[in-house]
């Protein structure tokens, strides 16, 4: 199968959906014209599909996301780019108060996708490195996905566009051009709400998503040299959460490490760890370990940022402690 970078898979998914459905459009800051977005994800789309379908917006996240709510209520399927996931807070009301509640409150459908370029490790400081997915997982009515590889980047985005609900799509920008992988051409859907075992193992389970899946796989290779076989579960979808796959894995390995780039305190990993404790208690041979960012704003300078975030080494260290428990 041909290989694409993670970012090319995202661009291909957008074009594929726009080609397939005239109700699909793109909007956001700098996405249109010849420019094609801060990361060039939408480059060439305006020339191909016209300015009306690739709409540049002013700097006004609350209102352009709110505008997407209205478009979606009328049956359009906007793909909204917030330039960095960090800026999604500016549009918070439009997402968590309006979009998330409208179907429950009066039956209106909001079939939009918000693309949120997230995550750090690329020396971008406090406002260009964040992973705010827990806010949205905590909000009833939203779906939240976080692909870890190019095939899922395409498949989950195409599924998100077709989903009748608001989906926040966290794309891991450290993977944009650093990760290549096989991506099916043409139609390719990855189901929202299904985790995947991306590496089988017997000794412990590493649960991860987004960029930390690559780190977990690197840690697993390292651990295998010591005779520790780690199973890696890629959540892919954070809401709905496929806990069944996690539980099946932990029931076999009896040990679990949960890892994400977002800060650990009250993060998605806390929910996963709590459910493992509640629902897999009899299977566990050791306490669940959580790895995540520190409870500090994301620092810029390399030694500080490296101290802040999990990586393959920290996962391997935690796994060794867990295996020896």
């Amino acid at each position, binding site marked *: 199968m041909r290989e694409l970078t993670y970012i090319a898979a995202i661009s291909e998914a957008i074009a594929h959906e726009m080609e397939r459905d005239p109700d699909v*459009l793109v909007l956001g800051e700098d996405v249109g014209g010849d420019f094609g977005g801060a990361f060039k994800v939408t480059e060439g789309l305006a020339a191909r599909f016209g300015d*009306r*379908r690739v709409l540049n*917006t*002013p700097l*006004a996240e*609350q*209102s*352009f*996301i*709110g*505008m*997407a*709510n*209205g*478009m*979606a*209520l*009328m*049956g*359009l399927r906007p793909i909204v780019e917030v330039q960095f996931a960090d800026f999604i807070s500016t549009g918070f*009301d*439009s997402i968590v*108060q*309006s979009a998330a*509640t*409208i*179907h*429950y*409150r*009066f*039956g*209106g*459908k*909001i*079939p939009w996708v918000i693309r949120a370029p997230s995550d750090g490790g690329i020396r971008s400081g406090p406002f260009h490195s964040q992973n705010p997915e827990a806010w949205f997982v905590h909000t*009833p*009515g939203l*779906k939240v996905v976080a692909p870890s590889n190019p095939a899922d980047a395409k498949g989950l985005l195409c599924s998100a566009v077709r989903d*009748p*609900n608001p989906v926040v799509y966290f794309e891991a920008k450290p993977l944009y051009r650093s990760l290549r992988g096989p991506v099916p051409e043409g139609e390719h859907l990855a189901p929202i709400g299904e985790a995947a075992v991306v590496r089988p193992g017997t000794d412990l389970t590493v649960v991860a998503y987004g960029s930390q899946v690559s780190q977990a796989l690197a840690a697993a290779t390292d651990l295998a040299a010591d005779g520790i076989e780690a199973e890696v579960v890629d959540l892919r979808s954070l809401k709905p959460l496929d806990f069944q796959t996690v539980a099946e894995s932990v029931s076999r390995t009896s040990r679990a490490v949960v890892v994400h780039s977002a800060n650990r305190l009250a993060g998605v990993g806390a929910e996963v760890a709590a459910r493992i404790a509640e629902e897999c208690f009899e299977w566990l041979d050791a306490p669940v370990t959580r790895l995540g960012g520190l409870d500090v704003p994301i620092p810029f300078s390399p030694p500080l940022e490296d101290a802040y975030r999990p990586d393959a080494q920290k996962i391997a260290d935690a796994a060794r402690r867990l295996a020896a428990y």
Partner: protein
Amino acid sequence: MSDPLGSHIREALFSTPPRPEEPKAPATQPESGETPADLADELRIDLYRWMRLTRTFDNTMVAMWKQGRGLGGTFSGRGHEGISVPIGLALGPDDVIAPMHRDVGSYLVRGMTPARVFGNLLGKVTGPSGGRDANLHGMGDLSLGIIGYVSHIPQQIPISLGVAMSFHYRDEPRVALTVCGDGGTTAGAYHESLNMAALYSAPLVLVVENNQYAYSTPLDQQMATFAITERAAGYGLTARTEDGNDVEAMYRSVKAAVDQARSGGGPTVIEARTMRMLGHAIHDGAEYVPPELLEEWETRDPVEGQRRRLLAGGVCDPARLEDIDAWARTEIDAAVAEAEAAPFPHPDTVSDGVYA
């Protein structure tokens, strides 16, 4: 009475120039009985009919809540009928409206029955939100072209901008209309959305119900100048000020804005000056509103004003108006009975509808 801010702080905050002028009620109260040539007599009577139904709804709702027959809180739209009715009537059947909680008239005009509105107020399964959303919020019914209200003012403006942009996107000759209060004009999304509406020439009409108070805060503590209309014009929208208690002036103005938007002429902001005649919500006695202000506006009541105008102009005889009043009473009484008899939602359905 003690002043929690301290008089010197209050003076520094609120008395620095340019101190806004008190907004005066527009001086064109319908008394003379002149017949505007552009409104058909039946339409003028219809405006009265819907206002009377809306007022009867409101009086009944307020009485029920005072009697303890309500559920939670609610919001009176008394005095706003001269706005809420024409914003509904001036739209076409395929247009979409996103009203607020003082705009029950527009819901009724668009075809939501009073029984359904009372059903929503009482948390019944028959309300448009099926017991999901409280009082006059969330009363959306897209089959009627109505988007339910969300409390986060002025969220309905960017949503309506998006509705308008969907019409633009599909080249449909349809219009989106929405509403906010004077308080809404001070929020960021108001300014963002007006800028974008003008930028995209969106088929959008925004009516600002300037009822002079955002909860307890009067205009002169909300903004340094009362230039709501001028600010909208500054963003490049068509903007004008109207007497929100003159239902015929409001109808003409909204209709012109809707026609302009439909024909590709771009968005309009209409600042409708009125007065909130009761508290912010049912629990609020509004003791902070000077009684003489309410007395002055009571003489300008939009429903009674239209009644006087119809009679003085010989548009119809008193018997017809009395028939309308009796009809409104019957309709609302029946609606209350229907809503009170309706079932509550079953607890097993609590999770239904979170997702589409």
